[in-house]
């Protein structure tokens, strides 16, 4: 019975890949939307803060299943525009996870020491420059591990998109099951693939975190900065 997994390895991996694709598109979108709402929540104006709080509180409470069904069926009922299954999946995940990312970014931004902003101000840097070069890099370093675990959650949440017909891992597995009736084998294979995906994501994020560490111990970052380091070395020796 385990030969089933090997025979259908192409389809199962294709399903996992689809889940990855949906999740990564949703991740990139959620990062921007989440940052936007985080900044809104930290604004001086109470109206913006109120809007952002409402958004975050609503979408943190909705499960992925409800969200995706509402986006796929509800939107075309209300507005007549039909999303493709892929688009609906991405939108649903983005709506959900951007609220989590808003909270992650807000707490990361507030965790950056107030003195950093003051040092930037005392030097005469513009507000945008302080945010871009001083506050944001430090906030990202704090936020990255949380983003990594959220991404694993996103991949798992794609499993609920079976109901709208997205051809991801659980859908593929259920269609194989409908033909061969080996649910135990197939569910174990699916679980194993999800766990493997989680390990892979964890590894990738660990490399990314290395890029944000100071001093730069990550191999990737050391490679990227070699020209600059050579330039500084030359300056030090010249003086």
């Amino acid at each position: 019975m385990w030969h089933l997994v090997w025979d259908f390895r192409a389809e199962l991996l294709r399903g996992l890949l689809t889940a990855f694709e949906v999740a990564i598109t949703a991740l990139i979108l959620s990062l921007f939307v989440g940052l936007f709402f985080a900044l809104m929540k930290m604004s001086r104006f109470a109206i913006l803060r109120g809007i952002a709080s409402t958004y975050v509180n609503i979408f943190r409470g909705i499960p992925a299943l409800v969200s995706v069904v509402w986006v796929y069926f509800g939107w075309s009922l209300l507005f007549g525009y039909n999303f493709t299954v892929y688009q609906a999946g991405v939108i649903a995940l983005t709506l959900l996870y951007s609220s989590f990312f808003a909270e992650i970014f807000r707490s990361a931004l507030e965790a950056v020491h107030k003195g950093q902003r003051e040092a930037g101000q005392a030097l005469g840097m513009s507000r945008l420059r302080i945010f871009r070069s001083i506050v944001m890099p430090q906030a990202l370093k704090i936020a990255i591990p949380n983003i990594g675990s959220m991404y694993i959650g996103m991949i798992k949440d794609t499993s609920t998109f079976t109901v709208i017909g997205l051809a991801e891992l659980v859908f593929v597995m259920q269609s194989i099951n409908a033909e061969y009736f080996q649910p135990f084998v197939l569910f174990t294979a699916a679980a194993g693939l999800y766990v493997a995906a989680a390990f892979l994501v964890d590894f990738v994020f660990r490399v990314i975190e290395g890029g944000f560490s100071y001093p730069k111990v990550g191999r990737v970052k050391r490679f990227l900065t070699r020209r600059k380091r050579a330039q500084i070395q030359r300056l030090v020796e010249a003086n």
Partner: protein
Amino acid sequence: MPPKDKPPLLLEVTTKGMFAGRTTRKTLSSLHSQLWPSCASIPHYMSALISLRGIRKSFGTSEVLHGIDLDVHSGSHTVIFGPSGSGKSTVLRSMNLLEEPTEGSVVFEGIEYGPGIPGDSTPRGKKIELRRQVGMVFQQFNLFPHLSAIDNIALSVHAVTGKSKDEALERAAQELKNVGLLKWAMNYPAQLSGGQQQRVAIARALSLDPKLMLFDEPTSALDPELVGEVLAVMRKLAETGMTMVVVTHEMGFAKEIGDQCIFMDNGYIADSGGADFFDTCTNKRTKEFIGSVL
């Protein structure tokens, strides 16, 4: 006794000529060049580089500074000291408007910054312009931890003066050499001792060629053995003629470089004096404080 509050002096000015009839209120200092035109061209070194006029600061309902007036002349070294909670850090931070005063203005080279006195309508300068000419060194160093020592300085130069990144790096190397830390250029703040971090912070502030340097208890967070190297850099800076305002507990150092000594207590300037202040002060509270520290 702390000085009593003086009501602000505002003059009502009515426009004449083509746009006649508009009445505004202005302070004496802003009308100076019109009232005494022959004195208008007196160069800046005769008047104060920076002066605080009637600075009041409240946090919520409690008033922390009650009407501070202070003049700092170009090339002089001012030392502010006093017990904790006396408002000395607040006074220093209002000099580059990190603390927005509730009332009062900061006049730097003739331009007024800050909220001013209510009813006064002189044009105000922008905060960022003031901050680009005034450098500040913090008690907690506030170096950017995600950048190396040389990058800390190069980023400031590049972001504020708009020089190219290569020029900024060269300038940064120069500044590091001046404080004696060029060998540690590529180290991150976490890899530097407290004294080294503070020296990089001083180099970073100096890299923008400020006209005035503010030091907020620069050695208070340092181990006693590391205090000396930072004071040496500050002494060297004082000898080059930089205008400095220092809030410090290092009375020995204050005695050494201080041209104007200010003692603050409870949000007032309780006593002030010149270079011989520590020996010739007569105020009982001041003598108590100095006696307990020196």
